[in-house]
């Protein structure tokens, strides 16, 4: 198992470029969410550039895996990763949140049909993913090769519907379903454990018959390996609890819950991009 060092370097550089685009597009937009997109950049990069069975030139390819973004507000990372993966041109990222843009403030399939779901209101994405996994299992049984990936925030697990979905997935033994929880510990008004404690998180998923994997959400090798590992799990849905650093990549933003949805101004943008460019340089030299 494991991915080559060269692949790790390629993924890290890609994630770094995606982070720069995220900062850039958020400053242009003048609103939007910062911390989540930055901290999920590594996981999105592994999914789109290593794990997912997909075809950016043929987004409606029926055999593709499905990626459901439940916490739609982190869509800058979805849009940026899709652009770098070749779904559309990177320059379109500049239109985020503007009138007439395909890149709506929260993802909307009417505008960008290549999205699997429109999302925004928290707590519903896992249910939709469960529905997809159920339909897939109805058609292909236990031999299904397809994976349904549901990307969730940690704070949306404060909603009851998430656990309704978790219960059903456990009952139906949906081995084709992989949920990823962005455990960044923040939400709009503070730190999750102050707003509404959700620990002990892994025990909760286990109680509903899920196979639980915990990873460092910024370690490319661990991320890639965890997705690979899920394929060996039988008769249970899988949840990957990804421990991430809110705002990862820009020390000024890291671990500060206020960056959940604070506006990035011009000065902050240039400092952040400088940080990330330096980091990019480090990635290149470390792997040389």
């Amino acid at each position, binding site marked *: 198992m494991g991915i080559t060092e060269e692949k790790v370097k390629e993924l890290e550089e890609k994630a770094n470029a995606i982070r720069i685009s995220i900062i850039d597009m958020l400053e242009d937009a003048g609103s939007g969410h910062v911390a989540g997109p930055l901290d999920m950049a590594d996981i999105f990069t592994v999914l789109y550039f290593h794990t997912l069975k997909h075809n950016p030139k043929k987004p409606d390819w029926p055999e593709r895996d*499905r990626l*459901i973004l439940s916490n739609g507000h982190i869509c800058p990372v979805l849009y940026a990763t899709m652009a770098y993966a070749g779904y559309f041109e990177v320059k379109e990222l500049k239109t985020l949140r503007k009138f007439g843009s395909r890149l709506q403030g929260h993802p*909307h*399939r*009417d505008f960008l049909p290549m999205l*699997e*779901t*429109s*999302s*925004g*209101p928290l*707590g*519903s994405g896992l*249910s*939709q*993913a*469960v*529905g*997809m*996994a*159920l*339909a*897939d299992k*109805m*058609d292909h049984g236990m031999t299904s090769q397809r994976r349904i990936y549901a990307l969730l925030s940690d704070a949306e697990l404060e909603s*009851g*519907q998430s656990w*309704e*979905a978790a*219960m*059903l997935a456990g009952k*139906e033994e949906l081995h084709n379903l992989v949920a990823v929880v962005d455990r960044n510990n923040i939400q709009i008004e503070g730190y999750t454990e102050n707003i509404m404690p959700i620990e002990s998180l892994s025990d909760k998923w286990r109680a509903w018959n899920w196979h639980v994997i915990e990873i460092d959400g910024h370690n490319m090798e661990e991320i890639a390996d965890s997705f690979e590992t899920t394929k060996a799990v039988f008769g249970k849905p899988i949840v990957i609890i990804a421990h991430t650093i809110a705002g990862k990549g820009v020390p000024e933003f890291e671990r500060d819950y206020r960056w959940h949805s604070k506006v990035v101004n011009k000065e902050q943008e240039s400092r952040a991009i400088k940080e990330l460019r330096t980091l990019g340089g480090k990635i290149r030299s470390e792997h040389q």
Partner: protein
Amino acid sequence: MLNPDLKLNTKIFDKGIEQVPIRQGFGEGLLQAGEENLQVVGLCADLTESTKMNLFADKFPNRFVQIGVAEQNLASVASGMAAMGKIPFISSYAMFSPGRNWEQIRTTICYNNQPVKIAGSHAGISVGPDGGTHQAIEDIAITRVLPRMIVLSPCDSVEARKATLASVDTGTPVYIRLAREKTPVMTTDETPFDIGKAQIFWSSTNPKVGIIATGGLLHKALLAAKELEGKGIEAEVMNLATIKPLDDKAIVELAKKTGRIVTVEEHQIAGGMGSAVAECLAQNFPVPIEFIGVHDQFGQSGTPDELIEHYGLGTKSIIKAVEKILKR
């Protein structure tokens, strides 16, 4: 007289008219839909027998999903299945679906443009002894405001079966309103049914009032029209089984022909079928309207007849409304 073109039940005014719960028609329609289309799946929130989805579930256990008491999940799981090409029918009591899960229906079904069919049983106050918590009298209002949603409110079990079958291929979300109690069977297998088409069940040569009814109360409206005929007042009675999209043309025609409209529904007056009719006529052909419905109140326990009487939804109330509007 009864419109002969519609091939209605000739025993419509007999005391011993056959009575069947409207939800039964949904169950039979879904079973038939399941036989005809392999993509049809059923999902239920622990009310399979009550909503008559059991007919489908027993025949097609592999295409049925028992969701448990989790209506929010019910709606969104169905959305996910629709995204994979299935045609999901979900059922519960209307109070819980589309009541409790309205936002999930809005976002994961309508906003996502997924063709999920929502069967809401036990709509109206005629639910009876269960009381106000279980009597959905807001469901038309909350579904007809949703873009893409088709809203169907069949008058009897036969029409409910046809409405269920017609909803399979719309490619859109559909809400089908169902009632618990036994309801007179007014239509027959031969009665035509098309989504979006209103029908005149009772016609007159020189009508002075048009009565537009939806759901099981249509029978009360027909009884009222017959009684009014005895008093020398001619009326026309329209069955409005599709509340959205509204058959504007037929409604305007009726208003032009009669000059006055009385709407009849087992629903809050605010936002219901009468409101939809009023929106249409206010724009196209304003005439006086009287609304039979629930006046900003909740339901309560009682027999269906007691409740229909108490909330002023019965034949007597319809006649009174007609007499009132004739004086306006």
